[in-house]
């Protein structure tokens, strides 16, 4: 279901690109550091995100509405890393430089394991909402929160080595990221 919504939004953004007389088309880069809010065995952990880089393709049909498609890559650790692609809508708030951004982002988690822990190779679809500030035509900054219903992305094998072992999943409760955007008009 989530994947279908994702595809519809992607197609819609492409359709709008084709059918509307857009005022501009921009291309840019986005660096997005942040934190992962994770939980395992009833214990929460905050994991820093230092490497998250994506390209930004922005279709701007008018001054208050933007459509964005973002392919990128994220590397946190061996349990949570992989390619990502997202589709977002950006709405300028009234006549200010602030904007509301919302959309969906798909994370393709890389499979990895060793004897005591590992990660699941899977697609994780996140929903996102955030607020941003467009300083000028090239630079903007925003803060976004991402969440998903498909939370389990890694596991650990708990064992005493003598009598039992069991697998405990690690969950992604949310991701908070600061987005730094640079973009240039190409059309």
């Amino acid at each position, binding site marked *: 279901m989530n994947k279908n919504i994702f595809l519809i939004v992607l197609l819609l953004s492409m359709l709008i690109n084709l059918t509307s007389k857009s005022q501009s088309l921009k291309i840019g880069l986005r660096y997005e550091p942040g934190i992962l809010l994770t939980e395992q065995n009833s214990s929460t952990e905050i994991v820093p995100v230092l490497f998250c880089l994506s390209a930004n393709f922005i279709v701007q049909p008018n001054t208050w509405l933007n459509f964005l498609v973002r392919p990128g890559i994220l590397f946190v650790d061996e349990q949570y890393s992989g390619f990502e692609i997202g589709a977002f809508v950006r709405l300028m708030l009234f006549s200010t430089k602030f904007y509301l951004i919302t959309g969906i982002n798909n994370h393709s988690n890389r499979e990895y*394991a060793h004897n005591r822990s590992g990660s699941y190779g899977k697609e994780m679809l996140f929903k996102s909402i955030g607020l941003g500030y467009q300083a000028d035509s090239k630079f903007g900054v925003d803060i976004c929160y991402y969440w998903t219903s498909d939370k389990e992305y890694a596991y650990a094998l708990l064992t005493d080595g003598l009598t039992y072992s069991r*697998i405990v999943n690690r969950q992604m409760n949310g991701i908070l990221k600061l987005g730094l955007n640079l973009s240039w008009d190409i059309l």
Partner: protein
Amino acid sequence: MKGVSSKLIRVFSYFLFSFLVILIFSFCAEKKPTEPNELQTKTTLSKPGGVRPDLNLSTDSTKTKDKSKKKGGPGMESLETGWKYETEYVFDHYSAKAGIEFGILPMASQQYDAVVMEELHSYWGFNYVAIMIGNSTTVSNAQNYFGIDHTMAVTEANDAGRNVIQYNTNNGLPTTTFFWAYYTDEPATAQSLTSYALDSFENFVHSVRPNSLFGFGDVTRQEIGNYITNTITNSNGQTYPNLYPVNPDYVMCTKYDGDNIPRWDLIKNLTTKFTRTWINNEIDKGEFSNLLINLRDNGIKPWLFVETNNAQNRVQYISDYCYTAWQVGFLDRYFKQYLVLYHCILNHVHDPNSPGNCIWEEYDRTYQGIVIR
């Protein structure tokens, strides 16, 4: 008119009589062929090849026919009259080749299950097993189906581990009984042991169980090298002397991500103690063949690590793994051989020039023994 009809009746009676005579003769000619001497003491079995509970061998579907007819069986005459023999093979089990160490660390739940443990050994061909040794059920399963002298005892390198190694605490074995090998998993990555701590543990195992092997496994060359060489390298690349190098009998690699072979090469170049390693039944499923060939060519013994989180595919992966291990040469594959007698059911005019043009129905099945194929 009356004379004509009586003549017709006579002619008809003549043809009817001739037809009956021919029919009786042909019925008598179609007799069951004489069975060879070895079939006189035949054992007729119920239809073999049924699905085993829990462990279903899907890759080796195993009923195969040898299309060459058995020599000494029914000849052309009997074929023409509707009988033939075929030799058929039904998969029975895998078994490790002589001199091969073919090991497995089953899931915890499997270690407690006697049926599964028996099948891992007797059906899938594993001849060594790694188990948790603080429990009498897991230990007795390993003892019954693999033997203590083919069991790798997995423990943590802590006081509980030391107790069970020295005294067989709670596992039902006499204190004097020792396992073939003792192993501690990921002392750096999971247990955060210093080289001193692991060296002490190794000295302890070798002192209380001098006839057993001691080994450990960790994720990469760096973690393993930090224990067994005279130099420790930290995560920043700085090096300093290792005052307590560990001297295990073997080391294993515990990481799986599709780059196993380059990682194995690094460890192999580091130490000659890299004589066994783990293969993950799920993460490595797409490259069993490459991995097993590499291990075979380098003289490294493969151990299957089954402790993963995908219960649905676990059985399929064991089946794939063993099939590949047979192809690569670690396992032999045993089949039950049957001599099967088929009867031709004709639903058309029989053509002596095409004696095989029949619908064949199994008439009898004779078990002839176990063969390697």
